[in-house]
């Protein structure tokens, strides 16, 4: 047992160190960080950095925070809904014309190296008239492989007997869905929504491509944008990184049990 802790504690320390360093880097001046990298407690709490990042690319910091919160929440709600209904339909009737193609196509989208899709996504959104619109961003963010796969696993595990019993009793498909399956799916849905929120928060690529300007940027995108030749402040980057990491970290810590059980429980059913 001692051996176990002797291994676990150092590993945990290594995993946690980046966060401590990030936090301290937000408060220490670049000069001090480069002079004494190991020191975690700031020499002084230099809050001047907040002025540095108060406006990025002309848009205010609180705008990025609001965007992150708004887009992530909306995309989570809509995405969870679409994934749930879609997964339900596909597991109930896997052989309907087009369903197998849809499922295969969906899995394919996960496999493509996304970074080259800048111009195609731009063109596609332009043709849909959604360029630069928050709605376009939200809709794009709804796409999430994990959500679909978790729901699929869950619905597959619903015993056929339960559905059969209902249909024999004369219930329509709609009633089966709303009266029987959905109530059962409540816990999974909450879990999927949580996981969806956590993963969607970190997404930067779609937001960056679809935005026409910094007013629709989210925090991770603002972080990337700090990288301009004409003004790159290490402290600012660290401070923004902290701001970007904090909300999902806090949410995760609050809902930990649910997230961890749901993440795995849905994925592995013997």
């Amino acid at each position, binding site marked *: 047992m001692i051996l176990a802790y002797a291994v676990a504690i150092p590993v945990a320390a290594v995993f946690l160190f980046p966060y401590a360093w990030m936090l301290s880097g937000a408060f220490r001046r670049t*000069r001090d960080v480069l002079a004494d990298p190991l020191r975690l407690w700031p020499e002084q709490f230099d809050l001047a950095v907040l002025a540095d990042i108060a406006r990025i690319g002309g848009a205010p910091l609180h705008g990025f925070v609001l965007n992150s919160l708004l887009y992530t929440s909306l995309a989570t709600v*809509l995405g969870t809904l679409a994934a749930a209904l879609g997964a339900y339909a596909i597991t109930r009737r896997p052989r309907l014309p087009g369903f197998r193609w849809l499922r295969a196509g969906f899995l394919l989208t996960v496999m493509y190296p996304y970074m080259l899709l800048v111009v195609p996504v731009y063109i596609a959104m332009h043709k849909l008239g959604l360029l630069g619109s928050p709605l376009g961003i*939200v809709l794009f963010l709804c796409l999430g492989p994990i959500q679909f796969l978790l729901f699929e696993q869950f619905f597959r595990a619903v015993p056929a007997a339960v559905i059969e019993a209902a249909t024999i009793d004369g219930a329509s498909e709609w009633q089966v869905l709303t009266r029987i399956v959905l*109530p059962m799916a409540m816990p999974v*849905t*909450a879990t999927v929504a949580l996981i969806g929120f956590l993963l969607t928060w970190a997404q930067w690529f779609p937001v960056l491509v679809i935005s026409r300007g910094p007013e629709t940027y989210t925090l991770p995108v603002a972080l990337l944008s700090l990288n*301009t030749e004409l003004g790159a402040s290490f402290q600012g980057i660290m401070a923004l990184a902290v701001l970007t990491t904090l909300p999902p970290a806090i949410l995760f810590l609050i809902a930990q049990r649910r997230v961890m059980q749901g993440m795995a429980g849905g994925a592995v059913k013997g």
Partner: protein
Amino acid sequence: MQERATRLTRRCLGFAAAAALAAPSVVRAQVTTLTIWHDLGDNGITWFERMGQAFAQVRPGVAIRSQSFPTEQWFGRVIGAINTNSAPDLIFNNYERVIRIQSQTNRVMDLRPVLEGVRDRDFLSEQDLRVGTFRDRLIIIPTQRVQMAMGTRLSWLRRVGESAPPDTWEDVRRVAQKFREGDPDGNGRADTFPFALQAARPRDLVHMLDLFTFGAGLTHTLIDPAGNITIDQPEHATVLAEFLRTYSTYRWVPPDTVNHSFTEMYQVIEGGRAGMFRVGDWNVRRWDGANTIGGDFVSHPWPRFFPNRDNAVVIAGMRGVGVPENAPNRALSVEFARFMLTRPAQQASLEVMGSAVRKDLDVSSLSERQQWFARARHRLVAYDFPEATHAFYPELEAGFHRRLLAAIGSPPRDHEVFIRELAREMRDTARRLSRG
């Protein structure tokens, strides 16, 4: 039940919010807004705001709205926008970047007739206009000549007993040794480096070489307009060899420099770990500040390598404004482009961005170090922008970069032999690319 109600409410709110977002905003257009896309960050946005205010005096009812994108994204966006007819009104960037836009869209306006209509333009030389021209089309109106000098930490010079910044390459060698071993920042630790440079991407490394090459009074770092490779000419080879040694055998830069791009290079400079570095006329504003190096540096020309060639400060960039042919408000955009050459616009450019093209501006409000650039009493040479002449230049440069990094990672025993070999390779590559 409770959960179901909450979820239903959430769903409804979700739809409502989504619908609200999608509803088009109904705003009465009382003002025409011109959009301009650049990559200058917050400074650039401030600059365009100031120009917008000045422009409104001349042209009421027109507002200027600028947006900054990281350079890499600026390309994709502008090209995509122009090609899908959703172009901004104006684009602003370095000349060689606007070239890329023109070659991929062929829809950047020829501004020559526009410029001809401007009477007050004596400050624009033939050289400036030639730089702004690509295949007989004037694709930008030049508005900023960007100077890049070498900078040296004043307090470091004093502490190691040097009375003046280095002028010749011999001076540099002496000063570099002292910066490395003489504890120039006085903190008792051997943690200082003579130079802060960059190397990660092709443009990062070769740009540094450009500065040393042109700064030493030579021209054409890698390839000349006729297509001849220049690196194995005796003087070029000397500069290149010393440049490579700076990174490798002399150990005058932090070892991680091979991974450094400008962000990391700035970190090293602002963190007070390097004695000599590149100073752009836009850096001064920030580096005068107390939270960076507090103005503790002096700008001067790049090192003199050859007694018969004068050293200089390099005009390594020409920034200008271009107008897409399918700009939503073409006539107004052209007017604003012309406006950017007027005194108020240029004054704002000098004060906010550090460079301009006009010679009759008021420099009294600038700091001592900013004035050094603005007065430009030193010798200036202009970079040759090979990308304008050879469409294959980016690919050639990438190959060049690869081999240079290899030479930095494993320094060759004989640099002269290496450079001869490299020149031969580059000739083959250039021949292949120019055919293809």
